[in-house]
């Protein structure tokens, strides 16, 4: 998985899910496809409401870490046939998609667990940062 595939400028369009499934899942050995999409939530605190998040990445390292995560997951779940990850950089508004994981495999048990494990490992390991932008245009690093 190259860094071009991992990072995407701006919010991820929903049709990307369909496009990736058409590419990765349309094979006769794929009984299950598990997907997770992470979206920006308009959380509220004392400062007001989050209207967007600006993501920045250490691009070269993110690509390497993502490759390693995919390798770990595919070793742990031999029934899994593919793991695809796409993450936004730049500004993503509340209600929009910023992360997409698509796992295909033979059976539901491993695709479901592999999708969750991919998500948790990416959260630990992807060198990506977010700056929450509030409705009053102030911001906060998370």
């Amino acid at each position, binding site marked *: 998985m190259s860094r071009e595939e991992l990072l995407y400028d701006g919010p991820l369009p929903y049709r990307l899910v369909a496009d990736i499934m058409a590419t990765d899942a349309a094979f006769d050995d794929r009984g299950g496809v598990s997907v997770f999409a*992470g979206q920006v939530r308009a959380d509220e605190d004392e400062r007001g409401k989050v209207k967007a998040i600006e*993501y*920045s*990445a*250490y691009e*070269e*390292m*993110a690509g*390497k870490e993502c490759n390693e995560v995919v390798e770990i997951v595919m070793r742990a779940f031999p029934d899994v046939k593919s793991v695809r990850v796409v*993450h936004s950089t730049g500004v993503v508004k509340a209600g929009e998609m910023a*992360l997409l994981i698509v796992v295909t495999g033979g059976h539901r048990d491993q695709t479901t667990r592999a999708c969750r494990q991919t*998500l948790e490992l*990416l*959260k*630990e*390991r*992807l*060198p*990506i*940062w*977010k*700056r929450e932008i509030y409705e009053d245009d102030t911001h906060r*690093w*998370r």
Partner: protein
Amino acid sequence: MGESRDRIRVLFFGIIAEKVGAKELYYEGVADTEALRKRVAESLPGLEKLSYRISVNREMVSETLQLKEGDEVAFLPPFAGG
């Protein structure tokens, strides 16, 4: 340890980039990651209060590592992707 003339590329991300006021700087005369931390702290007072890790050539490092010409060091605040 003597002063090194090697040029080290240093990348800053997230809140550290904002506070340093740069995403990328070059340093000379830093023999290892510990010396580099001190040099960066000169231009960013309060660095030691920020939570961060260091990578060298895109690998996380936890102990002090010698630096040489062409190394790429990055100051990484806690990850927040996903």
